[in-house]
């Protein structure tokens, strides 16, 4: 159990570091995906170690989280493409104006 | 001596449909190695049978295409040209392996491997015979689709790592095509899942066993929704395998060879192998889902042949149909391809799901036959009508030439 939680923590922090450090918008999205996956590890680990016998909620949370991640990726990447079309750049620190 | 006897006994049991064929061999070897031996026993036949089938298919395909074009086809190497595959294999093995200087070497090297491994993994869940499923996974169908979705990534890796614009265009075309056709493929398979209520491929195959006393086996292809689902599944599988008429990722006329343009020698052979193995796997899945798996078509034939013979006979038939289609149809255009997937295939598969639901809910046989047939035929006609005006050509008029 400690192993999974530690793995999840490390994965989450790798994702967080990526989001904070990289300039490219898509890399930030990759970091967010990693953080979501870190949460998924927790869901599965807690499901496996939960006390209720037929409780599958951890697994369902994980499946729903995957679905949400897919939706997030689709919309997020569409936004990135849209921004690129407008500004010809997807560097996060170059996108500083609030006006399109 | 003991293991050899066990192996022969295992082989005999596997070939004669007896339950638990692995047992005699596993009992003859030490306890510690049993799980490893079991894995080898599952994998080795797949690795032997399907590449051989691939080799035979390449020869037969070329002969068949030749005959369709009123030619003889390969007839030089071996008896009637049947050893052509050995010549081709030796040639690809001994050819120089050229990697472009600008290519991303690691990804370029990994791409063919990343294509072949998932395709081989998909065979793990197909039930080839009554007791011959390598892994009887509870979520077998999901496993099949999950693993086969990794091939798209391999295709992209190949196209991108070659650093060639034609490769990249071919890869993007292939990926777009595979993603688009994966939806109808999965939806068509789902109708069967709805009826059987299981994702296990062995259970789906077993559900189509003929009941004693009946005449025709209850294959799903013999129902209206099953027939439509089967046709849609085959079209989608054809597109997934990048086969003619959907082979425009490798359209010679505009992008030369598509994503494996910069591959030569053995890596090219691996791509070729992967493509055909993917075709076999899709056909095997279609057989399992719609054509009754390893069951005989009529109840009275059930005991005549071992179950795997039925499976491979159906597989050979489907491969022949694929070759026949390849010999007949010209390549479609990109917009036609996408239009077919999104405007026709997906609505049709969704309606097939509805029809399967109706079939499940409606009580009496004549009523559900009529309702499902009417629904699907009507949808087919209407969607066909909506699509057809695009393909209807008038008489060609030449304005300037005589």
């Amino acid at each position, binding site marked *: *159990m400690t192993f999974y*939680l*530690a793995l999840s923590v*490390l994965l*989450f*922090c*790798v*994702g967080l*570091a990526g989001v*904070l*450090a*990289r*300039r*490219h918008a*898509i890399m930030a999205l*990759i970091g967010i*995906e*990693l953080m979501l*996956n870190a949460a998924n*590890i927790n869901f*599965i*680990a807690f499901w*496996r*170690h*939960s006390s209720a016998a037929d409780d*599958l909620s951890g*697994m369902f949370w*994980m*499946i*729903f989280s*995957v679905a*949400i*991640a*897919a*939706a997030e990726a*689709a*919309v997020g*990447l*569409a*936004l990135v*493409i*849209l921004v*690129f079309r407008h500004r010809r750049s*997807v560097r996060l*620190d170059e996108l500083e104006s609030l006006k399109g | 001596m003991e293991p050899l006897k066990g192996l022969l006994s295992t082989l005999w049991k596997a070939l004669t449909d007896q339950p638990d064929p692995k047992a005699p061999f596993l009992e003859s070897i030490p306890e510690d190695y049993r799980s*490893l031996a079991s*894995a080898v026993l599952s994998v080795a036949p797949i690795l032997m049978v399907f590449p051989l089938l691939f080799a035979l298919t390449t020869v037969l395909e070329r002969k068949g295409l030749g005959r369709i074009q009123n030619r003889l086809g390969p007839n030089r190497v071996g008896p009637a040209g049947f050893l052509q595959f050995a010549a081709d294999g030796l040639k690809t093995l001994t050819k120089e392996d050229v990697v472009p200087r600008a290519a991303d070497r690691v990804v370029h090297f990994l791409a063919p491997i990343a294509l072949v491994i998932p395709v081989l993994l998909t065979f793990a869940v197909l039930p080839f015979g009554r007791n011959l499923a390598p892994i009887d996974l509870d*979520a077998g169908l*999901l*496993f099949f*689709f*999950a693993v086969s*979705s*990794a091939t798209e990534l391999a295709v992209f*890796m190949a196209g991108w790592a070659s650093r060639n614009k034609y490769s990249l265009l071919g890869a*993007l075309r292939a*990926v777009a095509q595979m993603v688009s056709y994966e939806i109808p493929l999965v939806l068509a398979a789902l109708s069967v899942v709805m009826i059987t*209520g*299981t*994702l296990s491929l062995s259970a789906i195959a077993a559900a189509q066993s003929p009941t004693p006393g009946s005449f025709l086996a209850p294959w799903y292809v013999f129902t209206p929704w099953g027939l439509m689902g089967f046709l849609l599944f085959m079209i989608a599988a054809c597109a997934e395998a990048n086969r003619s008429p959907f082979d425009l990722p490798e359209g010679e006329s505009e992008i030369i060879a598509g994503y494996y343009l910069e591959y030569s020698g053995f890596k090219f052979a691996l791509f070729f192998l992967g493509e055909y193995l993917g075709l076999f796997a899709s056909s095997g899945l279609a057989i399992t889902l719609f054509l009754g798996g390893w069951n005989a078509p009529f109840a009275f034939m059930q005991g005549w042949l071992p179950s795997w013979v039925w499976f491979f006979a159906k597989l050979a038939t489907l491969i022949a149909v694929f070759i026949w289609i390849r010999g007949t149809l010209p390549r479609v255009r990109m917009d036609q391809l996408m239009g077919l997937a999104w405007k026709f295939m997906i609505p049709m598969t969704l309606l097939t799901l509805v029809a399967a639901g109706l079939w499940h809910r409606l009580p009496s046989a004549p009523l559900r036959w009529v309702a499902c047939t009417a629904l699907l035929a009507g949808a087919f006609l209407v969607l066909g009508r909506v699509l057809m005006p695009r393909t209807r050509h008038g008489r060609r008029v030449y304005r300037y030439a005589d």
Partner: protein
Amino acid sequence: MEGGFIAMPTDVILWILGGLILISAVMSLALRNLIHCALFLMVCFLGLAGLYLHLNAVFSGLVQALVYVGAVGIILIFAILLTEGGGTETGSHLGSQWRTGIGLAVLLAFALLGAVSNSPQTTQAARHTEEPTVREIGLKLMTDYLLPLQTIGLLLTAAAIGAVVLAMQEPKPRKDETP
């Protein structure tokens, strides 16, 4: 799935998978070439799928492989190719405050690791050592979890339509409308 094909101790497999996941995650954020990053991300996702399979969550593992590798990965690659052309980034690939960001992440990692190592939860033994059948999952999904399922379906539909609308090519001004 139990213990793999070869009788290898479970711990070794776990360590291998964990190492694979972490290394590929780091690589997927550290490399300059965006396509390499995406490919390493796929390796990471496959490692996670393997981990789930190893934890007897076969359904979850397969969903992970199907959705992340088959769908998210492909969209990601398309997005990369549609924006930067898939090449190596020019200039620095790190933001201006990257030291602060990584420092924050490391601090958080230490804090969370400390919390995890002191947690009483972690001593619980694994209960679910048998994988739930797909039938069980399906039945539960269609009874107890029906509302979340439908909400997710709605969300996915909305996301799909939204993504299409966002990424749709803006209609070019027609000729007769231009001044």
